[in-house]
């Protein structure tokens, strides 16, 4: 195996890191303090990201992206992950790969404008009664002649306030299942402004200041047949085929954030003096650093190995679940210990640590909770044995 980076990968990491440090870090304090990401700021930074070729770099070259392989894309995600989430997600957007599943007309209307930075997408799956158990969704789409009529509520829909459209998953029917009937799901493009479609502000929350969530309401929202993404009743397949590596993306952003927290902890341990010596000389501090470094290394190897396997087409669900689980739990530990090493100063907003600590919390919940990941891993172990 080769664990080294190619020249291109190294340069991409350098450019992304320099961009994050020079163009995103200076605006973090404002976003954290106000909880708002100003639109003018977004436009200013976005223009720079487009010039640097960083915007929508996750997309294939053929549609205007950078055509990065999965491993290189994860290296790029890791660097972006260092910064405030709202800033990097909005100003250096990575449109959902699910847009690639569209017809040529849908690509013209949704994919290309997102890649060019003219539109934003969002994904609407979660409902108040359907979180981890997505098949339990209650929002429905029913046929009415050639049209579809959507009804129901979605919540926790990230950045739906700025999005121009939502890729929305709706229960469109039922099929017989082994124990009980299973819901069939269809995915739709729903444009902002469609009659019967309302976006309301969501909840204030602990993680990712400036990055909003919204509540989407559908009240007899009528869509033409062309609004269906993929095949009717095959929404889950569309999601599974195109959203494969989002868990690795989450894990990769955790790696960058952990590295940033760790750098502060290491610096503090090697400069702060108490009881007449550098606090890093105390084993209580130095062993924390060693444990943090080990966890970071393990998570990094798991994320990048899973990315490497993804490119080869051999990545398993359990492998990606393991990597996501490890990286998100590692970040929680590293952020917590980085604060502990700093003592009271770690809690002050002079340093990014309290933010990283808050932001770490959501990572063990979204894109599949730690418990769902453990379920996936354990089923992969036990299912072949009939248990």
């Amino acid at each position, binding site marked *: 195996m080769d664990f080294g980076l190619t020249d291109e990968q190294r340069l991409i990491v350098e450019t992304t890191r320099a961009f994050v440090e020079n163009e995103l870090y200076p605006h973090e304090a404002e976003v954290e303090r106000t909880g708002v990401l100003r639109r003018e700021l977004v436009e200013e930074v976005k223009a720079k990201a487009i010039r640097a070729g960083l915007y929508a770099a996750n997309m294939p070259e053929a549609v205007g992206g950078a055509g*990065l392989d999965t491993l290189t894309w994860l290296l790029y995600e890791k660097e972006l992950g260092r910064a405030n989430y709202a800033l990097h997600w909005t100003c250096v957007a990575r449109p959902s790969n699910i847009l690639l599943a569209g017809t040529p007309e849908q690509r013209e209307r949704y994919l290309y404008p997102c890649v060019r930075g003219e539109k934003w997408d969002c994904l609407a799956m979660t409902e108040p009664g359907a979180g981890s158990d997505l098949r339990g969704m209650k929002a429905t789409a029913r046929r009415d002649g050639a049209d579809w009529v959507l009804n129901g509520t979605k919540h926790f829909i990230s950045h739906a306030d700025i999005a121009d459209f939502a890729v929305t998953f709706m229960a469109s029917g039922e099929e017989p299942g082994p124990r009980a009937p299973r819901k069939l799901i269809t995915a739709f493009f729903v444009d902002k402004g469609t009659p019967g479609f309302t976006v309301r502000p969501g909840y204030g929350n602990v993680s990712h200041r400036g990055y909003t969530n919204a509540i989407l309401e559908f009240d007899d929202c009528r869509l033409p047949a062309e609004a269906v993404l993929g095949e009717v009743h095959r929404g889950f397949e569309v999601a599974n085929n195109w959203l494969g590596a989002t868990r690795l993306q989450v894990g990769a952003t955790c790696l960058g954030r952990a590295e940033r927290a760790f750098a502060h902890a290491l610096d503090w341990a090697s400069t702060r003096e108490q009881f007449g010596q550098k606090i890093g000389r105390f084993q209580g501090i130095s062993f924390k650093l060693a444990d943090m470094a080990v966890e970071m290394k393990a998570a990094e190897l798991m994320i990048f190995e899973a990315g490497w396997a993804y490119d080869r087409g051999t990545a398993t669900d359990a492998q990606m679940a393991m990597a996501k689980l490890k990286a998100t739990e590692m970040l929680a530990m590293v952020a917590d210990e980085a604060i502990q090493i700093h003592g009271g100063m770690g809690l002050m907003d002079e340093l990014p640590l309290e933010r990283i600590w808050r932001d770490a919390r959501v990572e063990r919940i979204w894109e599949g909770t730690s418990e769902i990941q453990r379920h996936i891993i354990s089923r992969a172990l036990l299912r072949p044995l009939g248990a």
Partner: protein
Amino acid sequence: MKVLVPVKRVVDYNVKIRVKSDQSGVETANVKMSMNPFDEIANEQAIRLKEKGTATEIVAVSLGEQKCQETLRTALAMGADRAIHVVTDAELQPLAVAKCLKAIAVREEPGLILLGKQAIDDDSNQTGQMLAALLGWAQATFVSKLEIADGKATCGREVDEGIETIEVTLPAIITVDLRLNEPRYASLPNIMKAKKKQIDSLTPEELGVDVAPRLVYTHFEEPPKRQAGVRVESVDELVGKLKSEAGVI
């Protein structure tokens, strides 16, 4: 017009410099290395000249160990057209570098050599000047404003009194200062394209240059730690301390 841009691989400007425990030099093992920031500005200026149609080809040059190829890749990803690597593990001092660059200039016949005013590692600020002397070309140093037209370069130089403007006839050596421009990011598409660009390797021997150091470094040490200040109660006490302790009046 062909532009030659020498670029040096140095310890990254963000790194806290540490002296090796045996005082033989600065620690560079496991330390982040980057292109000398002033050379980055020179490369950026060359790219802008090419974008304006003044320059037709940009050749980046670096001297030193194998890893200098990384620095050359960065120059290529920013927009240089091709690169020359003079491979050597020898310690390189400004005169040796200037001699190698002269030999390359004789081969390449550039209309302009653009380089950083100095490297941020040893701060020698000699290579450009020595190269101009060896080639017998005009030189403009510390340039923060540059216009090229009709075979002449009009250069704004940062001097103590302000900005001095001089005109030099090309071919010339121009060393650049901080405020000349703000270098671009190597964009992702250009990074991919740089993969196909050519890096030629040469040795000092092939250039006919003896790079043996002429200067000997005896030892390196860290600057003395700054002592904590004291608070004085009165002007008289301050004057007293300036006389007795500081010895400056």
